[in-house]
């Protein structure tokens, strides 16, 4: 995050899950706006029939987590929306910036347990850092197809070909397609 240099701010990670309906984002951000919180980073998406939100919010000190939790209580009682709030430490606000080749790994094939685990374990064992991961079940009821897309940073000495090679055994074992490609940004 680039805002870590700002002083006198307290940061919270707010996780929200609600049965999907129109107005969730407006309800949540209304609470934050009323309290004077700033949304620094966020990811909100529909997962199955639920709408999930993860927000990093900041507020000028002094400000307590209890105040934030209290304000969301009313929303929970009125709509059933569930909130979890965690105070972030200084170290969490200023993570070490990952430098390294960025790659996109796509995995797809017949649905079966263990695809995410098997793929990410191989990556973790070689210090490949996952920055983003999405999965989706597509296809038909009779023939469900599992799709996993992840974006990862490669450590020094690990190339796209290395990763592709490391996943070769899984490709055969799980009978899935695996593609690894570079998505390193171009400066224009």
């Amino acid at each position: 995050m680039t805002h870590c240099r700002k002083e006198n701010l307290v940061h919270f990670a707010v996780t929200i899950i609600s049965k999907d309906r129109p107005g969730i984002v407006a309800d949540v951000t209304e609470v934050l706006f009323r309290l004077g919180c700033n949304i620094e980073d966020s990811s909100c998406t529909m997962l199955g029939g639920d709408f999930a939100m993860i927000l990093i919010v900041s507020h000028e000190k002094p400000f307590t987590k209890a105040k934030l939790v209290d304000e969301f209580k009313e929303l929970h009682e009125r709509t059933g929306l569930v909130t979890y709030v965690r105070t972030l430490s200084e170290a969490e606000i200023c993570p070490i910036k990952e430098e390294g080749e960025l790659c996109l790994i796509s995995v797809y094939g017949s649905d079966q347990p263990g695809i995410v685990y098997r793929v990410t374990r191989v990556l973790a064992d070689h210090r490949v850092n996952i920055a983003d991961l999405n999965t989706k079940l597509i296809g038909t009821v009779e023939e469900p197809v599992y799709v996993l897309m992840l974006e990862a940073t490669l450590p020094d000495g690990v190339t796209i070909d290395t990763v592709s090679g490391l996943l070769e055994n899984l490709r055969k074992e799980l009978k899935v397609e695996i593609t690894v490609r570079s998505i390193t940004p171009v400066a224009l």
Partner: protein
Amino acid sequence: MPSQKILLYPHPILKKMARAVETVDDEIKGLLEDLIDTMREGPGSVGVAAPQIGVSLRVCVVDVSNSKLGKENNHGLLALINPEIVERDGEAFMREGCMSVPDYTGDVARSTRVVIRYLNEQGIACELEATGFEAVALQHEMDHLDGVLFLDRIASIKTGLFRRKSYR
């Protein structure tokens, strides 16, 4: 000519339609030199458009010959005055970053082949066909002449907008 400071969004010039050059005079030649110097100074930059250095004129420079993606397929240093795309085809996504929008990159769909008509630094009408990374760079720089940033072209926020990790 000195390297110029790159303006950052939200500077209003970056969202403005740039004016066409009427006469290719010494002033325009000086502008081209400034743009070339600025491009050479940029971190891994392969192009700069005049609005990025605060001049709202339809002038830009592109040179992908030193980049990993462009070195096999390029026209070398291109100085373009009043460039227009007269033909385009194909489509491919590339994750783009821009010196005027630091810290963000995004996947942008661009034509894979373009034919461009322009005036060169002598004011002579020229035409060239570009493909691959050079075509992408030309489209990105020419967008600046219309006040369009790569952020205006990102198709999907969920998968299309990323914090910049590094320059290569």
